[in-house]
């Protein structure tokens, strides 16, 4: 095993926090609280830290709820495989939160439509869009209000970046959100 390769990639990508594996609620909480403390220790301001916290939770809870191969054996407590990275984009001089999980082919269309819809709005309009969705509850389901992407876009300084990657028979969804 060549761990120095991974360390080099992490340095190049400005990654300050990473995890790959089965994501649960308790691990989500542990990760975001740890990353929050880390940013605070680095002297980041409250707004940056809180924005990171909010976006990271939405991404991690999306993985838990929507990732393919999630373990739902324990009723309402899901555990799902995924990857999360928190890093600094050197060129943009901004923090980013990025994640990846496997999805079903059917989800690709649903996610693409949602992303295009969200990215069609100006940042200033998203606050209202979110409230309308909360009021109408049109995207509400058992585990959430279906507004996680809107919440991320609202908090982000840029459009939501996303793509899909096919590896063999597997389809992965990637999202990157800049603070």
């Amino acid at each position, binding site marked *: 095993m060549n761990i120095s390769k991974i360390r080099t990639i992490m340095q190049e990508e400005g990654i300050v926090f990473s995890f790959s594996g089965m994501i649960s609620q308790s691990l989500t909480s542990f990760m975001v609280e740890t990353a929050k403390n880390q940013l605070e220790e680095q002297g980041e301001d409250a707004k940056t830290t809180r924005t990171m916290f909010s976006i990271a939770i939405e991404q991690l809870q999306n993985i838990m709820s929507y990732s393919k191969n999630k373990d739902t054996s324990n009723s309402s407590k899901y555990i799902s495989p995924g990857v999360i990275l928190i890093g600094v984009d050197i060129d943009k001089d901004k923090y980013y939160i990025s994640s990846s999980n496997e999805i079903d082919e059917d989800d690709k269309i649903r996610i693409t439509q949602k992303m295009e819809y969200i990215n069609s709005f100006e940042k200033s309009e998203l*606050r209202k869009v979110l409230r309308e969705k909360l009021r109408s509850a049109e995207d509400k389901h058992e*585990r959430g209000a279906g*507004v996680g992407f809107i919440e991320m876009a609202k908090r982000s300084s840029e459009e939501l970046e996303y793509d899909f990657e096919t590896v063999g028979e597997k389809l992965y969804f990637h999202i990157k959100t800049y603070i």
Partner: protein
Amino acid sequence: MENLIIEATQYTPKIDFNAKSQSLSIVGKSYPENTFEYYEPVIVWITEFLSNVSDDIITLYLDLEYLNSSSLKAYFDIFDLLEAAHNEGKKVQIEWVFDADNDICEETGEDFMEDFKSLDIKLVVKG
């Protein structure tokens, strides 16, 4: 009616509802994974409470450092219940409390004021 007390966890707030004094308080962070399941007893309690509440003032004290997107929906539902009670002539007061450096929480409070114009919602900056 019995009081409702639910202790805080790392990702759910402390809930302290006193039926007699009609003072309801929720303090902490809220990002459970099964939000609606978590808030169901809270909604049930409030619904029952509002159905036999006195003419005295009902106060809801909300000091919520962080809400995930599904928790936002749960609070929308709670505000809906309170708005209905207000429309029936009940006296409802809501205090939305936040830290001075917590812009996200302040913004959320402003959004609730905008969406529930008939409700008496006060934004209160801590310390």
